[in-house]
């Protein structure tokens, strides 16, 4: 066996692929070969490290030196300087957004320091397509332990005692769900992994499957053993081709090794797994709709009860869990309930993965203990908003969640505290909004999403979201009337109370939470016909500040409709009647003389 003195971990997650990591890998391979280092240094293509914004990322182990935004032209320097001479290339280190310090090591970067990785523990550190690497990180140790020393009831009890709650949104106790299904009498039962990940702004399930697929499979096997299922499905969004490919590779490998199939590891437990590709419908993330979709029908929810644990796929008892839920399971079995339950709050145990995006410096995927405050996530991990921009709100939970303002940032986050504050954990999308984001526009955005994804089965959701959207569009267009707010509120509560499935029941949340904390912004739109953030096009005009303009003529040249005129070196004028509000002049003005009013 070749012994390598170092490993170059190159991120091959979706973010880094789009930033060009494939070329970096080839360049490193060539460079190492040229310098005859290919027997000493091993290149490993890993899954996402979470800091996609800084990609392509290259990490050198064992020193854990962390290089960001690596380009092909940097490769030679890294090899010559760092790998040959032991002098790390500091120019490519991560720069802390606040202190501007250059940080060489992975663990010392603010973005990673406050994280605690259980579900994501292997993501970014192993080659997801290499089974042996998973094995070397305690892979399938939980399965082995379970098959040799635990009964199905014991497994369920451990998961229950650990306090694991579903990471797909609702936060239902996973152990209790398994117990209910285990009690259902039927020779045939199913396990389903929900990887439909429809929340526009969340991508943890994708990263988990791309970065460590065996971990999710192991979690599913444990669940299958606990409830007595012998068949399972992974329902993966078709928009995630890489996740599908890596999961398929993992399944085939597990089959070859006898970890899937008949009499696994010599026990009398048998289990097979299949992938079903989603076909592009958000509502299919809802469990009963997902089941309909696997059965080959239109993915429409049905009323519950009966719950899937009693009557699920093909009418048989079925447990559906989220990808991240399964990803936590092997560690619970391996290290016990107490260790898992030691992290988190009274009623929400363990960690949660959040997709941190929007108007802040470090965007990406983070796994943090429950009970952490939003302020820590946004400022300590996310590095805060961009220079000179003021934090306005954080949107959590996607189309079913809500917006929290500045004064709620110190709230310890868990399932229950978020619901009390008018938001929701949802899948864990966190979108930071600054003073250039319009709250009414964000509410309108989510409504247009839920409106177009409503399956149309029940009237409150189909018609109600349409009417709500119409009113919000009117407000954004400057045609709101004072009664609109009361009308919106009344309709929102009716939809919440009467829609059939979670999509409709939670669709009004983005409106209700913004009305709760940002009512004044709605009022500004309605009464003053102003959009304070300068987003709603009908409610502001572009203007030139003639004290700042130096007459460089750039804007006059690029304005597509010729709305700007003026003499060279003289302040320019903008004709607001001709202006089509494309915003190009504002982007290009070197003096920042153009503003919205």
């Amino acid at each position, binding site marked *: 066996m070749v012994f390598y003195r170092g490993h170059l971990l190159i991120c091959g997650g979706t*973010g880094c692929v789009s*930033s060009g990591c494939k070329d970096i890998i080839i360049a490193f391979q060539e460079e190492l070969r040229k310098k005859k280092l290919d027997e000493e240094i091993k290149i490993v293509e890993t899954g996402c490290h979470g800091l996609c914004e800084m990609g392509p990322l290259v990490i050198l182990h064992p020193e854990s030196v962390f290089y960001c935004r690596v380009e092909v032209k940097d490769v030679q320097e890294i090899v010559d300087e760092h790998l040959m001479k032991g002098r790390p290339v500091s120019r490519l280190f991560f720069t802390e957004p606040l202190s501007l310090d250059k940080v060489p090591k992975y663990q010392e970067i603010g973005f990673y320091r406050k994280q605690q990785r259980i579900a994501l523990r292997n993501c970014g550190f192993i080659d997801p397509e290499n089974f042996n690497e998973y094995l070397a990180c305690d892979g399938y140790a939980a399965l082995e332990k379970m098959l040799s020393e635990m009964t199905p009831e014991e497994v369920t009890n451990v998961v229950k005692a650990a306090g694991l709650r579903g990471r797909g949104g609702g936060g239902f106790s996973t152990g209790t769900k398994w117990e209910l299904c285990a009690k259902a009498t039927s020779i045939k039962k199913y396990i389903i992994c929900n990887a439909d990940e429809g929340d526009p702004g969340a991508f943890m399930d994708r990263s988990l499957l791309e970065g460590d697929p065996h971990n999710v499979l192991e979690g599913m096997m444990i669940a299958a053993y606990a409830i007595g299922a012998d068949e399972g499905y992974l329902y993966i969004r*078709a928009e995630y081709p890489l996740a599908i490919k890596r999961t398929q590779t993992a399944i085939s490998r597990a089959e070859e090794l006898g970890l899937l199939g008949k009499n696994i590891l010599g026990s009398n437990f048998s289990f097979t797994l299949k992938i079903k590709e989603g076909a592009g419908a958000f509502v299919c993330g809802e469990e009963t709709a997902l089941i309909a979709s696997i059965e*080959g*029908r239109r993915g429409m929810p049905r009323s519950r009860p009966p719950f899937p644990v009693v009557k699920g796929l093909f009418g048989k008892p079925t447990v559906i869990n989220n990808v991240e839920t399964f990803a936590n399971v092997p560690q619970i079995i391996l290290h016990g309930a107490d260790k898992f339950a030691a992290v988190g709050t009274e009623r929400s145990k363990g960690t949660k993965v959040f997709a941190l995006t*929007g108007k802040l410096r470090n*965007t990406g995927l983070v796994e943090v203990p429950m009970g952490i405050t939003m302020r820590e996530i946004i400022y300590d991990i996310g590095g805060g908003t961009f220079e000179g921009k003021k934090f306005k709100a954080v949107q959590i939970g996607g189309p079913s969640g809500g917006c929290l303002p500045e004064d709620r940032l110190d709230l310890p986050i868990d399932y229950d505290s978020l619901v009390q504050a008018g938001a929701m954990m949802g899948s864990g999308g966190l979108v930071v909004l600054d003073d250039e984001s319009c709250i009414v526009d964000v509410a309108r955005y989510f409504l247009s999403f839920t409106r177009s994804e409503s399956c149309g089965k029940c009237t409150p959701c189909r018609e109600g979201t349409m009417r709500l959207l119409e009113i919000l569009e009117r407000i954004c267009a400057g045609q709101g009337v004072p009664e609109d707010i009361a009308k919106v509120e009344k309709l929102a509560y009716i939809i919440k109370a009467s829609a059939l499935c979670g999509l409709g029941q939670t669709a009004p949340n983005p409106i209700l939470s913004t009305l709760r904390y940002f009512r004044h912004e709605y009022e500004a739109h309605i009464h003053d016909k102003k959009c304070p953030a300068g987003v709603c096009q009908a409610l502001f005009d572009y203007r030139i500040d003639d004290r700042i303009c130096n007459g460089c003529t750039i804007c006059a040249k690029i304005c597509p409709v010729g709305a700007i005129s003026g003499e060279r070196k003289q302040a320019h004028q903008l004709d607001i009647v001709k202006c089509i509000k494309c915003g190009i002049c504002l982007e290009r003005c070197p003096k920042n003389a153009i503003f919205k009013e």
Partner: protein
Amino acid sequence: MALEQVKQEKCTEFISDDMDHKLEALLLKNEKSPEILIFVLQQAQNIYGYLPEAVLLRISEALDVSKAKVYGVVTFYSQFHLKPRGRNIIRACQGTACHVRGVSRIIGKIKEEIGVNVGETTEDLRFTFEAVACIGACGLAPVIMINSDTHGRLTADKVPAILSLYE
């Protein structure tokens, strides 16, 4: 009777080239069951690039699923297309992260460049332009996908150069 004939004609006219052989092979491989309808439609769309009416009729017949049901499923899921599609598929992300980071400006630029709206295909079949909800690369917002390539950290002025990579 008349309807039967039309169907027959359509199907035979159809089973003539390579694509149709592939479809037949696909249908032969999979047993008759409604459960695999979505899978078969996905595969058929991979073969033809979209789902022509005759293909839907053939699938309905082979899987023994009613035409209404096939049509219902096809129109429910946004992945299925009843019209021919461009050689290159542009998918602009309209997820939350991309929305707040100004993807609408990018969409505007693409429209301007290729001359069609979201949901349409250019006449020369070079591009089909679609909007999707989150492609899971939010860290790089705003993001578009062309075929299977993801382009992130976009600004409107990068658009023409990117489009020119796809013929």
